[in-house]
């Protein structure tokens, strides 16, 4: 196998990896918690519709929420037990807002629903895609994009993302070391679904054990004629970003408004490939995932966590050391501080970090930007963060748009290197959400304008029509009068009478008789 030519993306940083803290222990199971709150929304594109009611007995892996629409993904009971509540629970989101969740009280038996593996040889493409959707598989790298949509496109190159570039996180590393066979099987299924010519598995060079394990499996099964290769990529954050990894492995640069499939490339996380294998080959829906729990805890490591387990339960299991100030979900570069610890683990939560002030010192006070340009050098999308900052800070949103704020992937490289300790990403997130809100307002205003104008036009038309009707009637009356009275009366008189009649009629038509005894107002005419 010849060494593949690798490409570079602009910028990037190389922070301390801190992987060893959690990566040296095998993946361990978590004791059943007292309750599991499974949110209905677990994918970035759609939600699920409840198909159970409170009091129902459910089995592990039983569908409890159907996919809503094409883009929705199903959710399943993470264990056997009873549905005790369908109510609002906090979600794993920086806002700490509530969302609808199905609460299950485990019965402790962990009884699986009958598992129905698909016969890979005979199953059709549609069957496979449907199964991916029905098994609730979404991207496990963090974006939670429904996998059945991505798998249903025809491409040339399939990329399996095992880069895992964020410091501290090691769940993909562990998964590749321990379950490499499943991952490769999943990759092969995805390859069949997408019709890809080659499969590239990209792994950062700071995970030699994972690389060895994956290479072993790939070489052992190299007889299927498929070109599956494990490629070692240099460790540089954010190589694990989908578009960055595609750039490194294939050289394609995909802009923010483009889709990778239009370049013939599609990228799946190793966790997703693993889940695809479990769902299709073993008939197990997505009910758990591997989560790294690390930081300021006594027992850091990787755990097989049932979806819906509260973060607090995990922290309790791993025993937070004194000095833990906050808890992060995700890595230290892109993760967020959890506003509430009763938030559940979802399909996209890959890491929980107990943060102490010694491990993660609070940012020093912000100093003025000196436009040193370090941020621009580290930006993987080639933006000028100092200009974005200048505009965002002054709430000059047009300026921020001019400097392409929408291209920002919020990777945090700029804030990591900033010598003035400016929370740049905070400013960009603020500006982005303000811009989004303004765009929504603008759209609403345009819609309202159109509707108002349509209504005004209709009222005008109605008025005109009414006036026309009245004129016609007046003319008619005048003609009738003239015919009746012959030429006996003066033409002048006839006109006067006609006008008077028309006036009375107009009045009676404009004002409906005030019929108080009818009770309730009589509408003049139906409205649309």
């Amino acid at each position, binding site marked *: 196998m010849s060494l593949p030519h690798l490409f570079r993306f602009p910028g990037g940083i190389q922070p301390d990896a801190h992987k060893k803290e959690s990566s040296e222990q095998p993946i361990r199971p978590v004791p059943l918690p007292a309750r599991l709150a499974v949110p209905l929304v677990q994918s970035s594109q759609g939600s699920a519709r409840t198909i159970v009611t409170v009091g129902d007995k459910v089995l592990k892996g039983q569908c409890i929420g159907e996919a809503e629409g094409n883009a929705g993904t199903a959710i399943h009971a993470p264990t056997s037990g009873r549905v005790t509540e369908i109510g609002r629970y906090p979600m794993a989101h920086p806002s700490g*807002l509530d969302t609808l969740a199905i609460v299950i009280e485990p019965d402790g038996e962990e009884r699986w629903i009958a598992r129905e593996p698909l016969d890979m040889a005979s199953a059709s493409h549609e069957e496979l895609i449907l199964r991916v959707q029905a098994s609730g598989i979404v991207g496990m790298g963090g974006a939670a994009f429904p996998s059945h949509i991505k798998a249903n496109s025809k491409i040339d190159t399939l990329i399996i993302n095992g880069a895992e570039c964020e410091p501290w996180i090691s769940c993909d590393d562990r998964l590749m070391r321990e379950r490499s066979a499943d991952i490769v099987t999943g990759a092969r299924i995805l390859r069949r679904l997408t019709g890809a010519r080659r499969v590239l598995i990209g792994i950062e060079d700071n995970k030699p054990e994972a690389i060895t394990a994956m290479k072993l499996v790939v070489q052992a099964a190299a007889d299927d004629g498929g070109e599956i290769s494990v490629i070692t990529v240099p460790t540089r954050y954010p190589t694990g970003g989908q578009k960055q990894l595609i750039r490194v492995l294939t050289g394609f640069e995909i802009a923010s408004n483009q889709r990778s499939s239009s370049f013939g490339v599609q990228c799946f996380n190793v966790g997703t490939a693993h889940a695809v294998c479990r769902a299709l080959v073993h008939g197990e829906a997505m009910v758990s995932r591997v989560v790294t729990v690390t930081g300021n805890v006594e027992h850091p490591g990787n755990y097989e966590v049932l979806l819906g387990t509260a973060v607090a339960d995990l922290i309790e299991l791993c025993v937070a050391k004194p000095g833990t100030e906050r808890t992060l979900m995700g890595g230290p570069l892109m993760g967020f501080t959890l506003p509430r610890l009763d938030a559940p683990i979802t399909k996209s939560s890959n890491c929980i970090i107990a943060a102490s002030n010694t491990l993660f010192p609070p940012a020093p006070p912000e100093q003025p930007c000196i436009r040193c340009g370090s941020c621009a050098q580290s930006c993987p999308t080639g933006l000028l963060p100092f200009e974005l900052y200048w505009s965002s800070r002054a709430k000059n949103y047009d300026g921020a748009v001019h400097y392409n704020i929408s291209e920002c992937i919020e990777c945090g490289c700029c804030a990591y290197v900033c010598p003035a300790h400016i929370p740049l990403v905070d400013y960009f997130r603020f500006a982005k959400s303000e811009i989004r*809100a303004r765009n*929504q307002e603008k759209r609403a205003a345009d*819609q*309202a304008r159109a509707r*108002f104008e*349509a209504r*005004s036009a209709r009222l005008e038309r109605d008025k005109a029509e009414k006036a026309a009707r009245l004129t016609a009637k007046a003319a008619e009356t005048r003609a009738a009068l003239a015919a009746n009275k012959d030429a006996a009366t003066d033409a002048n008189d006839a006109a006067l009478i006609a006008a008077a009649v028309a006036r009375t009629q107009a009045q009676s038509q404009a004002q409906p008789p005030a019929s108080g005894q009818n009770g309730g107002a009589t*509408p003049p005419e139906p*409205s649309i």
Partner: protein
Amino acid sequence: MIGITLALGIALGYAAIHFKVEGNPLAAQIDALLPQTQCAQCGYPGCKPYAEAVASGAAEINLCTPGGDEGAHKLAELLGREFKPHGGPVVEKVKVVALIDEQTCIGCTLCIQACPVDAIVGAAKQMHTVIAPICTGCELCLPPCPVDCISLIAEPRTPQNWRWKYPVTGLKVVA
């Protein structure tokens, strides 16, 4: 000198007649900046009439309540006029939509006639309902309702409309 002046005067006068152009695109530009709630709180029967009044100089730029100070700033910039803060009480900008209590509604259609954007559907003696995504929260349907069955509710907060705060910093905020 007089000759020059006369000659130029004639040329200008001729040009003024010959090159006359109609139309005022300013009103449209102003209209584009208004929030289109059609709430008539400015004293004009809708956003467009207000825009025309501003364009012709008949109205001040600070009369739009939903637009608030930010809207007045934008108008001031467009028209090159001096910014004036919005006169009325400063309302917190929370998007609200009307909600008809369907138990109380008697189906009188009065609110349907009042709604400037046709966001209420229903027929006589039939229960009415508000199409929430279209409702601008202008409150014009409230006074005509004989049974007071319409209330305004704040739009629920979701991750989609949740906003990040302006970063808290040691520095003074630049206005």
